[in-house]
């Protein structure tokens, strides 16, 4: 693994929405399906690739994830798993949503998976009102509508062990 990285000195420049430029090794960039497709087509590695929807802070996080995954050999799956579980730990919701959108835009499946899992874990086992409060979800049902929706879907709220 290490030798292939040393031999591959090709780099490309990514530019965040707030104008910061990141020099990235090509094999790291290839973790992103979006960048892979761009490189496969006609984009030269000398070009600066703008990522207008991703700010520098988020892009730095994304590239940290990509680098770890690109450099790790397949035999180190356990190490990657613990990296993944640490990666989003203590991250605030704002940063998490930026990361989800970046992973979605850049098509980095693994990162999107762990970020989606983090959101799911936050929702799990919580009453709906608490979920609404955590994520600022505005309940736009009228009380009558909500009652009707619950009634129509009563089967989903009836318990079985």
């Amino acid at each position, binding site marked *: 693994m290490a030798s292939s990285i040393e031999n591959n000195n090709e780099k490309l420049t990514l530019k965040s929405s707030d104008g910061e430029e990141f020099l990235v090794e090509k094999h790291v960039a290839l973790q992103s399906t979006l960048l892979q497709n761009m490189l496969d087509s006609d984009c030269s590695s000398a070009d600066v690739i703008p990522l207008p929807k991703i700010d520098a802070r988020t892009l730095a996080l994304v590239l940290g994830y990509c680098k770890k995954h690109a450099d790790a050999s397949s035999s180190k799956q356990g190490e990657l798993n613990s990296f993944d579980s640490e990666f989003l730990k203590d991250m605030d919701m704002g940063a998490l949503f930026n990361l989800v959108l970046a992973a979605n835009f850049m098509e980095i499946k693994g990162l*999107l998976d762990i970020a989606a899992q983090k959101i*799911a874990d936050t929702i799990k086992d919580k009453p*709906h009102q608490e979920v609404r409060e955590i*994520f600022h*979800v*505005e309940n736009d049902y009228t009380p009558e*509508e909500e009652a009707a929706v619950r009634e129509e879907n009563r089967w*989903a709220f*009836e318990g*079985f062990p």
Partner: protein
Amino acid sequence: MSLSNSDRSINNYPAKAEIKNESSDSDCSRRSYRSPGYQPAKRPRTDRRKTAIDRLSELPDHVLVHMLSLLPIREAIQTLVLSRRWKSLWTYVPSLHFRLFNSCVSVRDIQRFVTFVDETLIRSNRSKLEKFEVLCWYQPNFASDVNRWTKFAVWKGAKELHLSLPLAGLGSGGDECYELPQYLYTNSSFGDLGFSRCSVVPEGVVAWKSLTRLSIGCVKLSEDVIHKILAGSPVLEILELYKFKGFNRLRVSNSSVKKLILRNVWPICTTEEYMDSSKLEISAPNLRSLEITGCLARKNCRLGDVSLMQRSNLT
């Protein structure tokens, strides 16, 4: 008490379009959840939260659906009460896992479970399913329900199908377990199949052209059945058998099968079964990896031709 719902034919599950990348507020024309007084334009606002942005609901549909698929199915469905945005998002979840595995369940629990699965399937808007799984206690009069669900999985082109149906009640014999319907044996969508406590007896040929992983357990199998399965699974890579009985020779001649996993033979109750399971001869010339775990030790296991094997894990 009958648990079947014979009035719910599989044909009643409506075919629906794939998810659209737009607000899901308008896509529930099939079955209206709206109360008679529903007026879309009138949105009551709570002033105290006007400043806070709901970034969760702003995520694209497919990201939210993916997130919902990581929740237990019932919790995913219950998000429909959060707001209008969430009302039908769950209906696009691509993986459906239904589990009723508490050690103490009543007939009423099972009835509710059946209703829950049916109501979920009726509302599913996914045109293609990735995974379909049912793990629950089984009773013979429950067969028509499971048949209806497996038909649904086949109709939706599920790539993974997992059924685990231990018999409910004490002293149930092995003969009453769920018999896999014959239409399951010829299917080119299946890539991953898992059957536990299901009777596997194909009458005709097996044709699982895309199947790469198969796991069968807690069941009596015959050499003939295994032969049919292997003959009909040309790209099978991983074969797992656990808590099995009924055969003494296992021949895996498929060039595709790289890994064989054998776990725990069936608990022995009678002398006849002891004789039946006293030995096991394995021959798999193309195998790369063999894993034998658990109390297979009772078997006098003999490895025949395993000339290509690179890795074995015997514990």
